[in-house]
């Protein structure tokens, strides 16, 4: 027996995909992903319409999706993140049905509890055997972890594994086992390696971001959370990664042995593991080649599913054990609500990803951001969109001071005692206004183009159409 089919078209026919159904994709191949585009082209060619896409993220490489939306092949989108090109069209109202934005933890929770349903999951796999044992660790398109595909494989009515590296049965070091796979398709390429992972992720040289990173690490030190057993997550951009580098120095100097580090994994976090800062990495997604190499070779670098990473519906998940998470923001308001969905003109350009999940789980959730970014104030009176509720954000670190959520008087006292430059968030707002002056708020349209679903399943905000 073999599950191998000759083409994506054949697989579409075999799954019985028809008008009105939902198909799913993961985003481990990031902007280099060919799978979503190849499958959607084949669906369009087959004359199937009214499809809902449920994808863990939509990246720049998925811009061809816009044409499928325009032609009515795609009429619905459920996802955790949408980058600029598709985001702009969604904001302009290309879809009649509002997009459903979830979080990285909320998506598997809703799939597992039945609130969300996948008819056919198309899983791009850098290596697979002909029965569907597959992994992201090996092959010319290796992306490392396949964490966001685990739940799709588990719950979809039909599962198609699409690979460009077919190996003889059985593939032993698999991430997703054959028990979930219905069909396997071999294609020439599932993605462009250059877009899948960057060669190495570099730490910013921006002196302002470095200053913010240093302050963030001072906060972590002062919080009392930095001790043996420390569990940590940080992002890969700007000040976040720089903070990890400073934190490494502190942990080594003070001989602190952390428990685990997680999130999108970069070489810097791998270095922290190898230097002895942490016992292990829990990896739902790799961001660079060093991380891919590490997950392949180091047993202490453990792949985890999206549900284990962050699902509030799971019996337990890793975000709940975090000591500290460092997160970014496109806006944060006086109630500490954070927007990571829309840009300063109101266009969709992101999404929660794991933002809300980690903020809810971590003992201290920190936002690191410059106070003003290219003349746009980041601290505002009211965010355009609540991605992460302020009740779960503890600290805001900017180059012009640190604001602590009034609900966290304990942290405030500790930071003051450590001599950190603590100010109120209102003072930061005033400082931002002093720099940029009054600005005209963006006028949004009345039609809802997206609903923001919090990790517990409640709709916490709507995103409105932008009128050009």
């Amino acid at each position, binding site marked *: 027996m073999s599950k191998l089919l000759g083409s994506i078209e054949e697989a579409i026919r075999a799954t019985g995909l028809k008008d009105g159904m939902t198909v799913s994709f993961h985003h481990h191949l990031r902007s280099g992903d060919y799978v979503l585009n190849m499958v959607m082209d084949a669906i369009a060619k087959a004359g199937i319409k009214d499809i809902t896409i449920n994808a863990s993220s939509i990246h720049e490489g998925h811009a061809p999706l816009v044409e499928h939306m325009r032609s009515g092949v795609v009429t619905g989108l459920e996802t955790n993140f949408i980058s600029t090109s598709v985001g702009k069209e969604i904001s302009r109202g290309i879809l009649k049905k509002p997009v459903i934005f979830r979080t990285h933890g909320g998506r598997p929770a809703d799939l597992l509890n039945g609130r969300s349903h996948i008819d056919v999951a198309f899983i791009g796999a850098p290596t697979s055997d002909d029965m569907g044992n597959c992994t992201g660790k090996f092959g010319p398109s290796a992306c490392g972890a396949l964490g966001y595909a685990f739940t799709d494989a588990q719950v979809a009515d039909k599962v198609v594994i699409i690979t460009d590296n077919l190996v003889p049965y059985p593939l032993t070091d698999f991430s997703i086992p054959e028990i979930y796979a219905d069909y396997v398709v071999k294609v020439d390429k599932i993605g462009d390696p250059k877009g899948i992972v960057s060669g190495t992720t570099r730490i910013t040289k921006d002196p302002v971001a470095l*200053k913010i990173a240093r302050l963030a690490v001072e906060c972590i030190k002062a919080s009392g959370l930095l001790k043996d057993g420390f569990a940590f997550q940080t992002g890969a951009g700007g000040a976040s990664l720089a903070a990890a580098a400073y934190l490494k120095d502190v942990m080594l100097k003070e001989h602190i042995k952390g428990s685990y580090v997680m999130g999108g994994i970069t070489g810097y976090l791998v270095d922290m593991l190898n230097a002895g800062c942490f016992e292990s990495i829990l990896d739902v997604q790799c961001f660079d080649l060093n991380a891919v190499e590490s997950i392949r070779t180091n047993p202490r670098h453990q792949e985890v599913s999206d549900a284990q990473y962050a699902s509030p519906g799971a019996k337990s998940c890793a975000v709940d054990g975090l000591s500290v998470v460092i997160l970014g923001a496109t806006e944060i308001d006086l109630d500490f609500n954070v927007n990571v969905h829309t840009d300063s003109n109101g266009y969709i350009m992101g999404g929660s990803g794991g933002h809300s999940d980690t903020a809810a789980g971590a003992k201290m959730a920190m936002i690191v951001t410059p106070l003003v970014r290219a003349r746009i104030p980041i601290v505002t009176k009211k965010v355009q969109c609540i991605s992460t509720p302020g009740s779960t954000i503890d600290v805001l670190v900017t*180059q012009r001071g640190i604001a602590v959520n009034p609900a966290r008087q304990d942290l405030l006292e500790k930071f003051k005692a450590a001599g950190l430059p603590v100010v109120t968030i209102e003072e930061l707002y005033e400082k931002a206004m002093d720099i940029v002056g009054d600005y005209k708020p963006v006028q949004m349209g009345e039609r809802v183009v997206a609903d923001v679903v919090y990790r517990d399943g409640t709709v916490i905000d709507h995103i409105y159409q932008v009128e050009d």
Partner: protein
Amino acid sequence: MRRTMLFLPGNNPGMLGNGDVLGSDSIILDLEDAVSPDQKDSARILVRNALRDLHYEGCEIIIRINDLETPYWVEDLEAVLPLKPDVIMPTKVSGGAYIRRLADKMTEIEEKNGLEAGRTKLIPLLETTLGIENAFEIAKADPRMAALYLGAEDYTADLRCKRTKEGTEIFYARTRLVNAARAAGIDAYDTPWTDVADLEGLEKDALLAKSLGYTGKAVISPRHVDIVNEVFSPSEADIQYAREVFEAIEEGKRLGKGAVSLRGKMIDKPIVERARQVLENARAIYGGEF
């Protein structure tokens, strides 16, 4: 208190907007070498607007203007002086006449704008062999003089030798400049360390400058600020010793002793003076009572 003077290009809005958060005691908004001739106007306008609209908190503002041999320097002064910068930094200063000519023009502009004449000080950049030879004359040229500052890159070019990390070739200039500055009762600032990534070399170079009597050092990268600040800050041991000096003097007075000793050594006038400087610097850096 000026341990670090950080150069910021006058035509870079992002850097100008954040100049006061980078930890430097002074920032030098540069209208000279960092700005190409076709950008001189825009940099001047940008720096003027930054001075007018931004509130640089806890940070001294120095404007490096163009050389008096160029057509730009008067416009530079006219743009910035009405906004009351702390210091003007002229470049390629080779003698006292240069300073007097500049100071006269500054007075004229200040008076024209209804400002107190002499409020903005001068820290000239000495970067020619003649400038080094005339260091004392320059230091005494005008009451606006706050310090002398050594520029080793142009100086070594003028000297016709290679600039090295060891700095043997600038040893004479360093010692002559600091001696002239101290003789005139003003401060001395050392040349920047130009290898941005070599932080160990920076620390060694800053320690050398400190050992020669320099007050602080100019830096060309925000990455250098913390190291230079630390080198030029009094250590805890220095502060403790300075406190003990004054405690011992008080105790001596109380007991009616003429001569007082501390840790087996007589406390003489230079020791008292050094202790006073240490505590003064500590107060300026850390605030509070020392």
